């Protein structure tokens, strides 16, 4: 009698789902080791974002709407961008560090591990203050924008796709380190452009920047299209709008694999910290 039973290996998505969940819980446990620091950073980031709400309040009191956006519309942008930025940096805290990991030869550690190096690197860190951004996003959407439950659910869908776009664009920009070495200035600028342009009314920048917002700096997919769908609560359009996220993720992943072909190991011996 054959006593050996072959346990079936779970599917790829399930395995990586488990891996991401484990990374998340380990990162969170690490952050909670310094509980006071965690609370200070989260509250500090929320106060940081709240200052901009005050700015818009004072400005719009004097000017009325700007670029067709009222205070309510601007706060939607802030809630969505803040929530997306927060989620991206909680789950994939290394998106801004990928370039320095490549440049300093720390990629070797991840290449030797069985998981996909791109996912492994991005998910191996969390940014504590990003929790403040995520919580702030939900506080703004509920209390300043005044969202009901269906709107909060739709908002959550856009936060998830926005986080994926943030992670994809940032990681793609960081991949320039494969070709150019220290490209932190340019990659930082690309991320700053995406973050900043997403937070202001699209129309104030004029039509000549329109194509940039739907290609290189996808503020349109991250914030502007979700805003118009959110206003009309048009659920059938939500999956279409979210489709941009996997496309950008695939492009970002492709760039990383392409860059990996150029990577030369420095035979560095190190440990993951």
């Amino acid at each position, binding site marked *: 009698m054959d006593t050996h039973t072959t346990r079936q290996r779970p599917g790829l998505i399930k395995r990586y789902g488990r891996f991401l969940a484990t990374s998340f819980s380990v990162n969170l446990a690490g952050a909670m080791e310094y509980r006071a620091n965690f609370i200070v*950073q989260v509250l500090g980031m929320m*106060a940081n974002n709240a200052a901009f709400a005050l*700015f818009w309040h004072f*400005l719009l009191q004097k*000017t009325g709407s700007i670029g067709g956006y009222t205070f309510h519309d601007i706060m939607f942008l802030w809630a969505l961008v803040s929530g997306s930025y927060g989620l991206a940096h909680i789950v994939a805290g290394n998106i801004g560090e990928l370039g320095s990991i490549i440049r300093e030869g720390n990629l070797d550690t991840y290449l030797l591990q069985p998981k996909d190096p791109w996912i492994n690197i991005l998910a191996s860190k969390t940014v504590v203050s990003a929790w403040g951004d995520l919580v702030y996003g939900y506080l703004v959407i509920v209390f300043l924008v005044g969202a009901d439950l269906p709107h909060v659910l739709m908002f959550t869908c856009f936060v998830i796709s926005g986080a994926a776009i943030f992670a994809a664009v940032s990681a793609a920009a960081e991949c320039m380190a494969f070709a150019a070495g220290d490209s932190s200035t340019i990659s930082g600028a690309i991320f700053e452009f995406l973050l900043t342009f997403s937070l202001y009314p699209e129309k104030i920048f*004029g039509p000549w920047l329109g194509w940039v917002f739907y290609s290189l700096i996808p503020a349109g997919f991250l914030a502007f299209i979700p805003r118009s769908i959110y206003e009309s609560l048009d659920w059938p359009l939500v999956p279409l709008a979210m489709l941009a996220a996997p496309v950008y993720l695939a492009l970002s992943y492709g760039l990383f694999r392409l860059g990996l072909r150029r990577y030369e190991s420095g035979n560095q011996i190190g440990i993951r910290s």
Partner: protein
Amino acid sequence: MNGPKLSAPDSRNWERAIRPGRTVTGWLRRYLTVASTSVQNRLAYPAGVLGLAITYALFVFVFASVWTSASQGKTDIAGYTLVQLGWYFMIAELSIFGAGRFFFALSREFRGGAVAYQISRPYSLVFYHMAERLGPVLTESLGLAVIGSLIAWAMVGPLPLVMPLVQLASLLLSFLLAASIQFLLQFCLVLLVFWTEENTAFFWIYQKLTFILGAFLPLQFLPDQLQAAVWFSPFPAITYAPARILTAATDGTEIAGLLGFQACWLVLAGLLCALVWSRAKRRLSVQGG
């Protein structure tokens, strides 16, 4: 062998310059030497400023776009024309980008324990850091000012000046005062590491108050009661004063008032810094090594 020689006289000059002097000239020479050495170090790596310049240019562009859109169909907002608003932000933001970034580098240095050997050297630690940081900051600000002026000019047009020479000379003095006040206040925030390990949140709050109270918006945009209260804080001295002097000051009395306000805050910030540093020193323990 005819190889390159080390510049021994230079190092001797430096040593002579930082030796404690009894005269004001000696005192000034000491810190000017620190500042010029720091400027030379920074100029050796000009690419390091590129990221800062890109972000500054982005913000000037974005705010010029905001003001252009907001000003459509209006001759002025809160007493400022579109041209004044565009240039106001350019100068106010220059004060933050060019001369408001002391905190993180200083915090790293203090947390790293560099204070342990710096404190025994023959100079004032506060003035040493001030000279070391202000030198490069003022040099970088010149470059940023050129970039910001070009963008503001292209987006909102040239700024008409009522008293060009007085305004430009006052702007330089005002900017120097603003940079010094910012240094002293941020130095106080850095010194909080002697009481609490995590001091970044304090800086965030300080920075956002700077943004709201005079940088993103002229004070005339704030509600009346807040406008009155703000003058009891140092924030108008940091961004509003230099930006107002260049863009909207109507006469010499207003300029003199703004410079006087800044001078008062420089003295107050200096006294606060001396007080906090004297308390912080009591909490410092050097373990040798």
